[in-house]
């Protein structure tokens, strides 16, 4: 070992941090101890010495050593000898590029493998294969590496480029507050034993249709009235299944199995708002309260509403029911609170004149707030205005003020 160490230090150029192990065995010609590098125990010893004494070496010449492989330059070596940039392996006996692939991780800028059988074997594939192992290589076999030109095809979108699912989206946050309030009331009534009060939620001439998809047996409570165009052959039936007018609609809804919705599974997309109507879609899960099976279902419900009085009413509604996935089922809980949906950060699209809430919306909000709080319109508008027409905030402020007894009686005089 000492002899190897001595010989190595003789061959080490401290200034250049270069270790010349070219034809290492020749240093021991005629000596008692013959230490050729092609013997793996010698090679391993050499590597040990490098790691211990000169881990900052930058260039190593291993040429002319009849090497079959460079296995001793293992993971440990690569971890500890991080400054190595130049490696010469000329005139050795490495027969397959897979031996070189084991060196992946060595950040080489210059490499020389000429005179090794694997180079000829690869022919024209040689440069590319080497490049794929040592991407930062600049010089190969004493020649500069040719520039790499690729194709732009790899930029096609994958599922990694998809945006993260948001449970709530609202075109306007003022409208969002109103819609959430509507949803709370609607589902409370829908989940009760008597769905008749839902009459108030619908326009006189509203239309509504329900469709479902699932096993014949699973959907037996819904399949009769399912308005799925893909499964109906008679045109008349497609037309007939559209429930028209609020009385027929509510009587239809009353026929559907009683339910308990889980608002923690809800998503809300308020995707269109204007002075004449809003469109929003709710999806989520409910459990059937009656029947032997008491199945859990997934639903998708789209509402088109128009302003009426201080609130709004439904003019169009589609209801789609299907079986939940196992992932859906895992998330089902038996709560009825809409807190998590209310608190979900939504990608609320503020109108371009975001701080300016137009007159019509102001009137709607004030009327709704008046109904909610019992205060007269003037005070309601005032309360809202003070909270930048943020309905939720105004509600919270009102509750706090009321509890603190800070609201004068005149506020409630209509």
């Amino acid at each position, binding site marked *: 070992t000492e002899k190897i160490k001595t010989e190595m230090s003789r061959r080490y150029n401290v200034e250049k941090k270069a270790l010349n192990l070219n034809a290492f065995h020749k240093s021991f010609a005629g000596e008692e101890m013959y230490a050729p590098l092609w013997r793996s125990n010698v090679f391993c010893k050499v590597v040990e010495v490098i790691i211990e004494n000169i881990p900052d070496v930058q260039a190593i010449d291993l040429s002319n050593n009849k090497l079959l492989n460079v296995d001793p330059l293992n993971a440990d070596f690569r971890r500890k000898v991080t400054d190595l940039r130049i490696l010469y392996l000329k005139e050795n006996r490495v027969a397959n590029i897979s031996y070189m692939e084991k060196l992946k991780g060595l950040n080489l800028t210059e490499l020389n493998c000429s005179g090794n059988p694997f180079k000829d074997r690869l022919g024209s594939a040689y440069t590319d294969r080497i490049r794929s192992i040592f991407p930062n290589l600049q010089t190969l076999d004493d020649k500069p590496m040719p520039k790499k030109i690729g194709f732009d095809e790899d930029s096609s979108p994958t599922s990694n480029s998809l945006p*993260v699912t948001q449970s709530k989206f609202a075109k306007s946050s003022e409208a969002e507050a109103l819609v959430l309030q509507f949803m709370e009331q609607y589902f409370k009534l829908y989940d009760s034993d008597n769905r008749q009060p839902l009459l108030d939620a619908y326009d006189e001439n509203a239309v509504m249709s329900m469709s479902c998809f699932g096993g014949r047996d699973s959907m037996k409570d819904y399949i009769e009235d399912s308005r799925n165009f893909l499964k109906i052959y008679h045109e008349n039936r497609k037309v007939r299944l559209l429930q028209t007018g609020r009385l027929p609609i509510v009587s239809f809804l009353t026929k559907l199995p009683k339910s308990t919705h889980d608002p923690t599974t809800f998503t809300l997309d308020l*995707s269109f708002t204007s002075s004449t109507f809003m469109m929003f879609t709710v999806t989520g899960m409910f459990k059937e309260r009656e029947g032997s099976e008491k199945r859990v279902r997934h639903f998708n419900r789209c509402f088109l509403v128009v302003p009426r009085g201080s609130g709004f009413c439904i003019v169009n509604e589609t209801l789609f029911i299907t079986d939940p996935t196992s992932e859906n089922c895992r998330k089902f809980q038996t709560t009825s609170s809409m807190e998590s949906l209310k608190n979900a950060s939504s990608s609320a699209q503020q109108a371009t004149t975001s701080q300016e809430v137009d007159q019509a919306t102001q009137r709607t909000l004030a009327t709704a707030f008046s109904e909610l709080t019992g205060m007269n319109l003037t005070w309601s508008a005032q309360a809202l205005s003070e909270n930048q027409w943020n309905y939720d905030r105004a509600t919270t402020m009102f509750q706090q003020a009321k509890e603190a007894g800070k609201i004068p009686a005149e506020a409630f005089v209509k």
Partner: protein
Amino acid sequence: MVDREEEYTEKCTRAIRTAEQFSELFYKKLDKERHTIDKMYLPTATLAWNGNAVDGLDNIKRFLLDRLPKSSHTIHNLDSQPVADSAVGGQTTVLVQVSGNVRYDANPSVPFQQNFLLTDSDSKWKVAVDNFRTQ
């Protein structure tokens, strides 16, 4: 009375026809000719993809071409209604409800539901609102 019924049936039938033709064309384009699908949207359309808003044709085009991977849709449910005049003031509009399964790239297919608001724009049906949710 009869007139109104007739009118109603006509509107209903048109909504059915429109939905059937639309869904066939839309998903074919989405899966096989994605680069032509922007023509189906209004310049002012809104797309909400799993709660992510994409506003305006330019953004929608970019989203569909750059962020949505290659898709394969199978539709198993289709429903539609004519939208009430009181909402759209005479602007002929149809509400469409689609349900099916979608596969992105080589991933396993997932169930989805989609709602569309289609409107008559110069005698061409265009998507004003596209609301997509995976189940």
